[in-house]
């Protein structure tokens, strides 16, 4: 049971990275972004291209850091992929959502458009990489460490938790210490007031997309390191990510973080009683219960 909780925390980190981005986009841009999961998949595949094609070609050696399953190639691929997805997110915003915002389309049309983006990204991934399961480093035995209390954890998984914590701290500092971060929080709290104070809303929106895209791409790469890559991986995370977002109240990044852990742990612990394929319905049921009991989420104001 303890090892299920530990694994839940690891999955929770990945869900949280997705949910933090989603909750920011939801609040600041005003889109229920159904393409968020597919941004995640895209991030994982961009890192795959970097690790398996671009970086070997450049001449980066195929090293490994001690017990971890990756080395310098992944260290370089990681931020590059985050940056790439950040730009893709901004690109779709400028290409589609900005036009829809200008036409004063309602929120549902924007969500519909993002669902279209989700399918477009997934189809491109399927066309380019096919539908097989792939690994960053195939055929590698990845032994687990044995910790007290019967916990088994792979070194990679410790890295996943550390990376997630690092990114969240970075985001926290960005939002609290930089001018752009403060402007984003202001826009999130009160968009009209932010506008009259002279904050450039379009720039804020681009930054929000960039952060959301980058964080979810990081989640995708971490999932790829832990398990494997598959074109449907991000789509399968979409319901848990939304559940975490709603659980932690829309717009609240710390809520999204906690929501991610709650959903992650609940999904993993449920496998003790249910078939593992029912993880997704478990996340869904939690979401429905929250919507019934407290639709504004645990950190929401009545």
């Amino acid at each position: 049971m303890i090892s299920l909780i530990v694994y839940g925390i690891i999955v929770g980190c990945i869900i949280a990275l997705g949910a933090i981005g989603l909750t920011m986009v939801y609040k600041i841009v005003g889109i229920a972004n159904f393409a968020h999961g597919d941004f995640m998949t895209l991030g994982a595949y961009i890192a795959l291209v970097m690790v398996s094609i671009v970086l070997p070609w450049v001449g980066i050696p195929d090293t490994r850091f001690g017990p971890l399953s990756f080395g310098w190639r992944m260290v370089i691929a990681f931020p590059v992929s985050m940056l790439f997805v950040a730009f893709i997110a901004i690109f779709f915003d400028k290409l589609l959502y900005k036009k829809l915002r200008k036409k004063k389309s309602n929120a549902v049309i924007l969500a519909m458009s993002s669902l279209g983006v989700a399918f477009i990204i997934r189809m491109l991934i399927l066309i380019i990489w096919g539908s097989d399961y792939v690994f960053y480093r195939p055929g590698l035995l990845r032994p687990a460490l044995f910790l007290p209390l019967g916990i088994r954890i792979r070194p990679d998984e410790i890295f996943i938790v550390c990376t997630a914590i690092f990114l969240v701290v970075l985001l926290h500092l960005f939002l609290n210490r930089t001018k752009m971060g403060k402007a984003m929080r202001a826009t999130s709290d009160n968009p009209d007031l932010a506008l009259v104070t002279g904050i450039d809303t379009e720039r804020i929106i681009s930054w929000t997309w960039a952060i959301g895209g980058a964080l979810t791409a990081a989640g995708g790469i971490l999932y790829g390191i832990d398990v494997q890559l598959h074109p449907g991986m991000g789509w399968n995370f979409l319901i848990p990510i939304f559940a975490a977002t709603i659980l932690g109240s829309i717009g609240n990044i710390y809520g999204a973080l906690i929501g991610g852990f709650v959903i992650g742990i609940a999904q993993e612990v449920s496998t003790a009683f249910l078939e593992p394929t029912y993880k997704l319905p478990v996340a869904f049921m939690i979401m429905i219960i929250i919507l019934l009991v407290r639709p504004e989420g645990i950190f929401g104001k009545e």
Partner: protein
Amino acid sequence: MHIAGLSSYIVSLIIMAGIYAVLSLGLNIQWGYTGLFNIGIAGFFCIGAYTSAMITTPMPSGIYAKYVHQLFGLNLPFVFGLLGAAIAAGIIAFLIGIPTLRLRDDYLAIATLGIAETIRLIFNNEQWLANGPRGLMGLPQPLHSLVSERNYNYIYIIIVIVIMAIIYLAIEKAIRSPWGRVLRAIREDEGSASMSGKDVFNFKMQSFVFGCMVMGVGGALYAHYTRSITPTVFTPLYGTFIVWIMLMAGGSGNNKGAILGAFVIWGVWVGTKFMTDFLPPYLQSRAPYFRFLIIGIILEFILIYRPQGMIGEEKSVSKLME
């Protein structure tokens, strides 16, 4: 291709387009007239198909009982299958409506997406329910004894068209009644509808359940057309996404548009198959993804440049008022 082959091909196209038109009409009640954002069409489609399949087939016996499991098998006529499909989809819709219809529109979307995935996973995992991933086969077809096997589709096309027409007329009738006017009032401005003393939640629920029942009928029509169903058919791509594009393309808020969109987009969908035939051989296995990519791009174009669809909504208030 000789004439008989061509005409049977066209018939099969029309049958599928007609089935999708039923789904699109169901969605039109919800989105077109009430503004409900349901992206779990595949779930209700799936429930309808399986319910009708189990109502019309007998319980497997003898050697089959070892290999085929299903919850029940009533061996009743096709009409009962249709009714059962509508009722089952309606019950699920009612249950999912309770927590979500009071909330913001986008919550309904996430919830319906979740229910559709859950339904598919349940049918895929639970052997006892409807034979798991292998699905149900050999479903009966109505009036099958009248013609030879080869020509059966000429009967089924009539059945599909008649049912589509009945649903069309029923929705038109309902939408032009005071009830339909309340739905459109809710779509335009929920606040003022509720200030006029309308129980918004109740009306939304009726619209949602009605729409999902229609989708259930669509599922039943599909099941008895293909005669075999597996959970893999009812994915968000084939079950939900394409129906949305049909309605958006045709014109949401217009039942003729819903039908027209279904036929046009189904035509485009089939047409893209001919296009992908020109792909180099090593890309052939990825042809379906190209086709969906095209469909997705069409959706984005419609949303930006022609959100009202090919034929927009008719602004008719009542048949008594010009």
